[in-house]
């Protein structure tokens, strides 16, 4: 009688169907092969236990980040619009890029915004200077403090569908007078564009702080911005269309307090 080789025994131990029935019947009749099979089964059991303990071992987090980032450019869903009041305000006061780094588009659709946007930019510069000098006074020798100070926190929540916190944005002022917004969020919905962080002002104005990737980021605030006036942190879904304005699709929002 020809005994089974290891390959055949392993297939039996794995409960894979052997190429022929010979192995299955042989092992029932042959004590020696039956014993070998038992030994292989123990080994297979050990390996299965080890694998169960290891868990699924998913691909590294940066792979997930890359998937989330790529899908953000592709998803078809139209996401939560800005709330009515802010949308209305936005239509009256077009947003500008906070730092004025992006040139204003001059295409016909947007040209009617150019003058107000420029006026707003000039206004921001003037008010910026005012605040800047106020801040300079503030950091005189008496009050100089090199440690960053936590000034306010906003709890970010989805605009629609749920009241659970998606994360926080912390307003921090560093010793040199620069304010930062430290954003940390998770489980943002998958979106069509990129996540862009904004500060919304009480008067319907908004400033962009930049693109949020991988759920967290630190954003320097434009020098001199009045955070009491721009107290709402907003994360929007921005398509890569070259239009620096807010898309009016917000995915999360919270008020600094």
């Amino acid at each position, binding site marked *: 009688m020809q005994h089974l080789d290891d390959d055949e025994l392993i297939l039996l131990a794995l409960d894979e169907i052997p190429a022929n029935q010979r192995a299955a019947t042989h092992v029932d009749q042959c004590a020696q092969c039956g014993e070998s099979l038992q030994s292989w089964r123990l080994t297979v059991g050990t390996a299965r236990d080890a694998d169960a303990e290891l868990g699924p071992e998913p691909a590294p987090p940066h*792979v997930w980040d890359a998937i989330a980032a790529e899908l953000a450019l592709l998803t078809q869903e139209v996401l939560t619009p800005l709330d009515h009041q802010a949308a209305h305000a936005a239509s009256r006061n077009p947003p500008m890029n906070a730092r004025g780094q992006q040139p204003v588009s001059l295409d016909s659709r947007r040209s009617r915004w150019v003058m107000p946007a420029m006026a707003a930019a000039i206004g921001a510069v003037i008010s910026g200077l005012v605040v800047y000098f106020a801040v300079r006074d503030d950091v005189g020798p008496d009050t100089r403090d090199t440690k960053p100070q936590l000034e306010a926190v906003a709890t970010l929540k989805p605009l629609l569908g749920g009241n659970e916190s998606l994360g926080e944005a912390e307003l921090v002022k560093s010793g040199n007078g620069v304010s930062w917004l430290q954003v940390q969020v998770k489980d943002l919905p998958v979106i069509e564009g990129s996540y862009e962080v904004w500060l919304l002002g009480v008067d319907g104005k908004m400033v962009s702080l930049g693109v949020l990737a991988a759920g967290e980021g630190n954003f320097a605030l434009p020098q001199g911005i009045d955070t009491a006036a721009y107290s709402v942190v907003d994360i929007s879904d921005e398509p890569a269309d070259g239009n620096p304005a807010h898309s009016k699709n917000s995915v999360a929002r919270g008020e600094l307090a």
Partner: protein
Amino acid sequence: MIYAVHVTGPPPPEPNGAVDPQWLQRFRDGDSAALKETFDRFSGMVLRLAVLGLRDYHDAEDLVQLVFVRAWKGRHTFDPERGSMGGWLLGITRRQIADRYAALDRDRKIIRAATSLASAPNPPSEDDLVIDRLDVKNEINRLPRPQRMVLRLAFYDGLTHSEIAETTGLPLGTVKSHIRRGLAALKQNREVDGAAS
């Protein structure tokens, strides 16, 4: 979700086994959290297949990205009635790896195949045989990489030898050889350890 518990012990369901219908429904409905759960559960399988198939870790990570992006874009075509999520992702992975192979020029393919054959697993050294029986994870992790991944695909991911071979492009004989050598090494460890205690 159901997959969260697997890490802590109970055996995982085979990809072809029953799965939580709500999770699949949420996936089809475009709930990105369900995509993350799918990633958490199955990206390991896809990565293992891709590493074995492409023999390049970075290419393999790229392929994982491609597979999950495809899966998400094509989520409406996934029919839970007709097959499991694991099986569906397996199919996408197989096509993607096959596409990559088709894109490789013939010479490179031959070189890769030769490298694959040349990198026969090493026999376990004396040090390898001294194992901590309590830490069974070590046993799997100490195996040479291709063996380890093939064993994980067979046991944890529940794939048959043929599925592993068809998806990765490895010859069936190579897959079987990895499994046999991997199990032989584990068996030897166990027996040596048993004799020593």
